């Protein structure tokens, strides 16, 4: 009873001891904030990685892949059918993407991935990352008439808008074709002008250019959107019947680029745009533009072939590694162009199968089941975690190191408590003697100081908890305030692709931090408490 009372009285009359736990408070608060932010980042990254890679990836070692996806999928289902929710075949090859920006050719190295429109969405979060609301619902490789998102659909708070996407789609394509035609006519007119005056044509070109150029994205005057849709309808219908039988320039007949498209592709948004320092996305090409892609055929030795494709949407996973590397295309088109379809049997080849598992299925267990069922010489079977192992373990490592460092701070605070407690024991020597003369036992006296340490630890950790949670929950407001105050960007969205700092508070982590801090405070009070317990009552009473 006296222990509690004296602890409480000492706590109330010795504010200096509370000062010693401020470092505990700060340490706990920092640990909570750092862990929340790191967990937020790590979670965000994992969902993004997982969004691209399905749960388990079944790949062949060779670029030309393996034949007969159907048979393979049946085998996979036989090996681990209970836990499989969906599967989709893909073909992935390295490729080169080229497009023209203001007369200059821009070339990028990409991963060209053929996906099955109908089943791909079931195996990964792919469609969630597209820019057209209809494509997010059901992916289509046909160019849309418009209606692309002009704001980031994934941002919880509205980020910078993308006005450039407003006219993307058929209007943009038609306008580009029109401008190219006018440009050609002007060139021809100029050539003709070498022989005679060609003013009327020239003036006409200038007038159209003047009408279209400022309102970059609007259809030319006189052409109402309704009329436009009607005009498109036959072409769009034709394309919908067989998206892969789009008109090809090498098929001998001329196509009308204003009404028809090449094979549709969905490149990562990072390939087509860049984010400037104000966080606004600037686009080099838009849905509706044509690009060239060069890729290897499946034969031996592989030959490089080129083809023209039409961008129909952008893919934005917010993992810049993927957004600036992946280009998606219908798998059948890619198989045909690469010569992956057996001419005799018509059976296609693929080089990987994406497997999605049911909720709660054990990732590693299914992987091991599949590894047992297929020869390792031919197939590489890995979970999405395996594939991003180095990245994920690097994040875990960072977190571990930070936690150790921050815990050191709390340990340093522990030594502060130790020093102050020693002083308090010396100051209270006579009181300890009095208590012993009144019959208090040595363990009882030690208990006072241990309890005091526990109190201080709990108060420090509690204050740290409150502070830490307050910072975590308001971190974006704090960031904004710091940015406003210093005039510098603390958290640059062009680097992280998030508009706000993600945070996750794991109660278990918080509990561990608090328990650790309290334990350190108690541990720091053990030595002073022992010293107090060992004091000889007579000498303690004589102490002034």
């Amino acid at each position, binding site marked *: *009873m*006296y222990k*509690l*009372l*004296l602890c409480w*009285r*000492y706590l109330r*009359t010795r504010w200096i001891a509370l000062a010693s736990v401020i470092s505990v408070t700060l340490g706990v608060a920092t640990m909570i904030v750092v862990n929340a932010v790191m967990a937020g980042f790590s979670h965000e990254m994992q969902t993004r990685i997982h969004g691209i890679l399905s749960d388990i990836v079944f790949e062949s070692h060779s670029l030309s892949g393996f034949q007969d996806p159907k048979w393979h999928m049946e085998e996979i289902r036989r090996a681990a059918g209970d836990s499989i929710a969906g599967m989709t075949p893909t073909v992935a090859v390295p490729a080169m993407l080229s497009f023209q920006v203001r007369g200059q050719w821009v070339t990028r190295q990409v991963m060209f991935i053929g996906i099955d429109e109908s089943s791909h969405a079931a195996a990964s979060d792919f469609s969630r990352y597209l820019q057209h609301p209809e494509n997010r619902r059901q992916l289509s490789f046909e160019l849309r008439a418009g209606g692309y998102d002009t704001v980031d659909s994934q941002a919880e708070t509205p980020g910078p808008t993308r006005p450039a996407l407003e006219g993307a789609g058929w209007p943009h394509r038609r306008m580009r074709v029109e401008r190219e035609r006018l440009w050609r006519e002007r060139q021809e007119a100029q050539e003709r002008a070498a022989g005679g005056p060609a003013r009327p044509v020239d003036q006409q070109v200038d007038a159209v250019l003047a009408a279209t150029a400022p309102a970059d994205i609007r259809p030319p005057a006189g052409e109402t959107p309704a009329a436009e849709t009607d005009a498109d309808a036959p072409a769009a219908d034709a394309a919908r019947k067989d998206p892969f039988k789009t008109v090809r320039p090498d098929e001998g007949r001329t196509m009308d680029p204003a009404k028809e498209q090449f094979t549709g592709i969905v490149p990562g948004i990072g390939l087509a745009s860049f984010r400037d320092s104000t966080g606004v996305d600037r686009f080099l090409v838009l849905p509706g533009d044509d690009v060239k892609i060069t890729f290897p055929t499946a034969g031996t030795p592989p030959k490089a072939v080129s083809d023209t494709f039409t961008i129909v949407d952008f893919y934005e996973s917010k993992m810049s590694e993927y957004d600036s590397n992946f280009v998606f295309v219908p798998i059948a088109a890619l198989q045909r162009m690469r010569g992956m379809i057996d001419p005799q049997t018509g059976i296609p080849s693929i080089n990987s199968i994406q497997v999605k598992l049911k909720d709660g299925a054990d990732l590693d267990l299914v992987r091991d089941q599949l590894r047992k069922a297929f020869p390792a010489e031919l197939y590489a079977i890995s979970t999405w975690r395996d594939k991003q192992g180095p990245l994920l373990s690097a994040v875990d490592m960072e977190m571990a190191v930070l936690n150790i460092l921050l815990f050191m701070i709390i340990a340093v605070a522990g030594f502060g408590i130790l020093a102050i407690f020693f002083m308090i024991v010396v100051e209270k020597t*006579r*009181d300890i*003697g*009095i*208590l*012993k*003369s*009144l*019959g*208090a*036992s*040595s363990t*009882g006296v030690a208990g006072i100081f241990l309890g005091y340490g526990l109190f201080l630890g709990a108060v420090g950790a509690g204050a740290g908890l409150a502070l830490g949670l307050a910072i975590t929950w308001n971190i974006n407001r704090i960031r904004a305030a710091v940015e406003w105050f210093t005039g510098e960007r603390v958290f640059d969205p062009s680097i992280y692709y998030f508009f706000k700092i993600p945070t996750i508070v794991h109660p278990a982590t918080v509990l561990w931090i608090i328990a650790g801090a309290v334990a350190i405070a108690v541990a720091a009070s053990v030595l002073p408490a022992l010293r107090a317990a060992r004091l*000889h*009552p*007579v000498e303690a*009473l004589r102490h002034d």
Partner: protein
Amino acid sequence: MTDRAKLLEARGVRKSYRSGGGRLDVLRGVDFSLEPGGFVSVIGQSGSGKSTLLHLMGLLDAPDAGEVWLGGERIDDLPAARRDRLRNTAIGMVFQAYHLLPELDALENVLAPLYVRYSLAAWLREGPAARARARGLLERFGLGERLHHKPRQLSGGEMQRVAIARALVAEPRVLLADEPTGNLDEESGAGILDTLSELNRRDGLSIVLVTHDQVIARRADRIVRLAAGRVETV
């Protein structure tokens, strides 16, 4: 060896301290006894060992040789827990420097031995009665108005009266007073001595009073004189 007529006894106790390089023999075989209801003064020069004798009998220290008996039971060789318990229940001590706890007010200081005795649960049960008893003691000593004053707000005489009340609240079998008037002016000192005498006479409290002052010592029934660590008969 039990002698029912003796409440508190020291039999041939010796105590020496190491000081510097040498050995200081404070007590060289002292016999002392207190009968129930007795009031004995121990008198001697500074350094004669009278305080040490009191500490040994109050179980604050252990003798190098010899025995301490309380109520027919040897107490100096008991395990620490039993000795703590005896200090708490059977022995009341009053010191020259009052030795009140500065964080507690007068009433709480008086209750301190009971705080030590009871667990929190027991305190919830016993607390009200204990508080009433402590309040009664303080009122009896004329401190009814000062129950919630901290020691630093009290005069020397008042502090010593609080200390006596604290020594009595546990209803001990013997009160050991070590120079209780040493820090007080004559008037306050006389008041304290009157209180002790009254406790002895009216309540039959057994008291050992250590002092260096002949006049004060005479307030007791019997005087034991210590010199150079031995008892001189008077």
